[in-house]
């Protein structure tokens, strides 16, 4: 019984703030703390806010590109780690690829900023920071997450499937593309969704590595909140929560859905 109470307390602690935020996003009043009746007014205002909408567009594009790149790189890293057998530097690769999982974002962001500045001075690229630099920065940490997800799937991949493809005349490359990739596709999609969400979320690293004209949504939200909370932000946050929850559920479901693609 006491365990049950403790669990409820934890859930309230974790989710009450978000619930409050969702409720107040439908508040008629301009004052965030005073309830004045149900309204979807702030959602309308949100969609008319050009600054926020352009920031959303930037964030979505960065997240899409970062997630896609991370899936390619993360899959290659996962293949190297799980399928190539022992090779010189495998352990080092494993540690280095997944290190961004535990490195504080501030440090990742700062080090990337220093790198971009130094590169700009040395080779003239990137001349200025913007979407491309945020994209590259997001790829670095998103790749780590994708690698972990895909490596977990590859670890229980039935190697006889790959061998059967070779045996039936497929070159190693075609065997990988025609058999391994389709079978692990749910894990790739789950990794992509995870990377997309993380990129959409990120404030710290983006703040360090962005430049003029490439303000991401979390940055707009953060700076607007400092000037006083507009209920618009509640509306935006509600939409983001809905999206993140859906993406998380989708990736969880894809990882769970083993029956259709069972090979172990």
């Amino acid at each position, binding site marked *: 019984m006491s365990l049950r109470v403790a669990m409820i307390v934890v859930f309230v602690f974790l989710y009450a703030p978000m619930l409050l935020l969702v409720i107040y996003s439908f508040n008629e009043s301009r004052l965030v703390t005073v309830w004045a009746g149900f309204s979807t007014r702030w959602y309308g205002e949100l969609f008319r806010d050009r600054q926020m909408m352009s920031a959303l567009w930037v964030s979505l594009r960065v997240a899409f590109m970062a997630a896609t790149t991370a899936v390619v790189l993360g899959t290659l890293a996962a293949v190297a780690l799980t399928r190539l057998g022992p090779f010189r530097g495998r352990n080092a690769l494993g540690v280095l690829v997944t290190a961004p999982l535990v490195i504080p974002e501030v440090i990742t962001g700062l080090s990337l900023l220093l790198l971009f500045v130094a590169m700009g001075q040395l080779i003239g690229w990137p001349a200025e920071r913007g979407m491309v630099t945020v994209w590259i920065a997001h790829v670095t940490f998103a790749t780590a997450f994708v690698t972990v997800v895909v490596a977990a799937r590859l670890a229980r991949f039935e190697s006889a499937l790959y061998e059967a493809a070779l*045996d039936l005349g497929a070159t190693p490359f075609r065997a990988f593309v025609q058999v391994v990739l*389709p079978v692990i596709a749910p894990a790739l999609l789950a990794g992509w969704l995870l990377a997309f969400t993380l990129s959409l979320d990120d404030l710290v690293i983006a703040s360090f590595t962005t430049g003029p004209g490439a303000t991401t949504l979390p940055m707009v939200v953060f700076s607007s909140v400092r000037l006083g909370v507009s209920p618009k932000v509640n509306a935006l946050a509600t939409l983001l929560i809905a999206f993140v929850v859906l993406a998380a559920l989708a990736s969880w479901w894809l990882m769970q859905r083993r029956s259709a693609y069972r090979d172990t």
Partner: protein
Amino acid sequence: MSGTPGFLSLRGLERRYGTVNAVDVVDLDIGRSEIFALLGPSGCGKSTLLRMLAGLEGIDAGTIHLDGELLNAQPAHRRPVNMMFQAYALFPHLTVADNVAFGLRQLGMETARLRARVEEMLALVRMSDYAARRPQQLSGGQQQRVALARSLARAPKLLLLDEPMAALDRQLRVEMQRELREILRSIEITCVIVTHDRDEAMTMADRIGLMQQGRLVQVGSPEAVYDRPRTRFAAEFLGPVNLLDGVAESADRVRLGDRLLPTAGAAPGARITVAVRPEDIDLHLAPPAHGQALAGTLVGIDYMGAHRVLEIEVPGLPRLSVIVSGSAQKTPPPGTAVWLDWWPEDAVVLEETS
């Protein structure tokens, strides 16, 4: 081993893992359209040898020739060899028809021919009605047929079967063994089967190669290997057997305790082990006239349906098993005194190599 190379010819084949030879100097010739079973306990190297033939395992020494062509340097996907994997390894994301078509697509075969070939293969294994299904919607036996169709589609010169019945339950196994053998015979394909199941090897194969610790210890027809095992291991692996230690009195007499029993091909004076199958022992309820039968006591009876296994205790010898068939009423009760003998060719003198 004959001097003329076979359709499939292995010479001095070796595979090493560290200091262990998984496959240890294997020489073997297999004829065209022959069904050959590699039989042995797990870890004897039979699967490694099969994978070497498929190109999925490296070769440390020796050569593999197939139809006069050296296979050593050819990677798996270029060899005219196809394998049916142990758990079938059907592609879960493809339909039955696409599984069978997979190997043909790699050849770049045109659509019409490819379709015809897939239909032909599915008809061969009686799975035409399941072309649009996914592998996970099929039973074990059906999956096996699809796997067979897939491995035959490219018309390989050599078909490899890795423990073909291991994933099936016992009842289905006997049925599928017969069906598989008939399909293989009808298309006259050269085939190497790996199995640890002696019944499977004896039912399906023209010849058996018995493997032990990476070596081929005996090669021959199922009858030859069963009736004339060369070693203790071969005798025991192929079925229940009585192993009796004695001294050769002459070329065709072995002294067991105080009796002389028939055997064949012994070196006089040598300490030898003879192997006698339980079904080859003749049981008498009265001493035979020649006076050289083993005298013992019936101590146990196991009823096995069509036959019975009798346990006989003979002073100075390990307990003997004797299989008798026929009416159960004729079986004497435990405690009965019995006499045992056999024909000379049924007591095989083993080489003392094990």
